[in-house]
């Protein structure tokens, strides 16, 4: 995965966190389009929310704004912090698979995401209702790896836009319009 690549990946470690900061803002933007429904490249539909916790920080300086409870990303104060140039330091994200209105079974993942280092923690997996030790291990790992698949697919969707200059310029205009900085 990292060996024999076109660039020395290990030299990039710790130097590319601006991508995860941009990714989180893009994810917030996406979570407010079409009620958070996102179609992944493999046609899987998931719903993404920022919920319960959102921390924005100054680009220069130490001031932070913490929004807790409910859906903080929908609060005008959080949007104002973004308008004033703050960026997301960390947030709690909920991903839902399955559409209840289509009578599909729903599965839900909740986790904390820190932009520095693309760091996820405190992951709550969908509940596993089996008692057999090995079966439980398999199911829990299946759900954990499914979450990583979704994160990889979301990150890839973002990078496909981000790495193509005309597409990103266009997306940036839309994001700034959404923020209110157009």
């Amino acid at each position, binding site marked *: 995965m990292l060996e024999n690549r076109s660039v020395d990946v290990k030299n990039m470690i710790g130097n*590319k966190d601006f991508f995860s*900061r941009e990714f989180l803002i893009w994810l917030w933007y996406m979570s407010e389009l079409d009620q958070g429904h996102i179609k992944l490249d493999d046609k899987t539909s998931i719903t993404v929310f920022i919920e319960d916790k959102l921390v924005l920080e100054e680009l220069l300086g130490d001031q932070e704004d913490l929004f807790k409870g409910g859906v903080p990303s929908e609060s005008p104060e959080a949007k104002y912090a973004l308008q004033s140039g703050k960026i997301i330091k960390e947030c709690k994200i909920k991903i839902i698979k399955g559409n209840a209105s289509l009578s599909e079974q729903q599965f839900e993942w909740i986790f904390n995401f820190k932009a520095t280092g*693309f760091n996820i923690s405190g992951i709550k997996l969908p509940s596993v209702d089996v008692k057999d030790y090995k079966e439980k*291990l398999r199911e829990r*790992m299946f759900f954990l*790896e499914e979450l990583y698949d979704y994160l990889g697919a979301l990150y890839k969707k973002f990078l496909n836009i981000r790495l193509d200059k005309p597409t990103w310029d266009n997306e940036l205009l839309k994001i700034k319009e959404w923020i209110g900085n157009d």
Partner: protein
Amino acid sequence: MGIMGGGLTFKAYIVEGYDFRNIDYDLWLKRLNRGSFKPVNKEKSEKEAFGFSDSKDIFAEELDFRNTFYDNYVYFNFRRDTLKMQKSVINHYVKEIEKTFTKKVTKRELKEIKARAEAKYIRELYPTIASYEIIWNVETGILYFLTQSKAVNDKFTEWFERNMELELTEVETATFAATILNDDELIQFDKKSPSSLVSI
């Protein structure tokens, strides 16, 4: 809280240096057991011991094949025992030993007294035991180490690389991108600088 229940917090690593289609599991078990946990050696005044332990029994002397390999997963623990010494207790023992001296102790003697006091204290101490789960999908090459403590992660990665003769690289913003981008995309990724969204 762990693999089998509750919330999950970990650092994820990319493991490299093997071909998942051609794994010698007996050799891997030997290597894991080479790095298995050995208790703190109090005679040598050790204050810490760490190593791999069995997924079902952290007190077992060796890892059991059946508890370690499940389907395409390797599941085990990293056990770390520490002897936590309180300064006040060491000072008490130092004073006790000093009383046996008839003359005023020199700096050199004081150093020796402290060493003797620590050795005496260590013999009476029981270690604090901590263990951290590891689950590694050998097919995807991703290993999850269930703690984000930097000190413990540093010890674990060094120990794992030395004993398993494999390389670990932390999954983070750039390395995660490398797992999902092709070579041309990775070159573009490397060339980009922060956009106006996150820069002044």
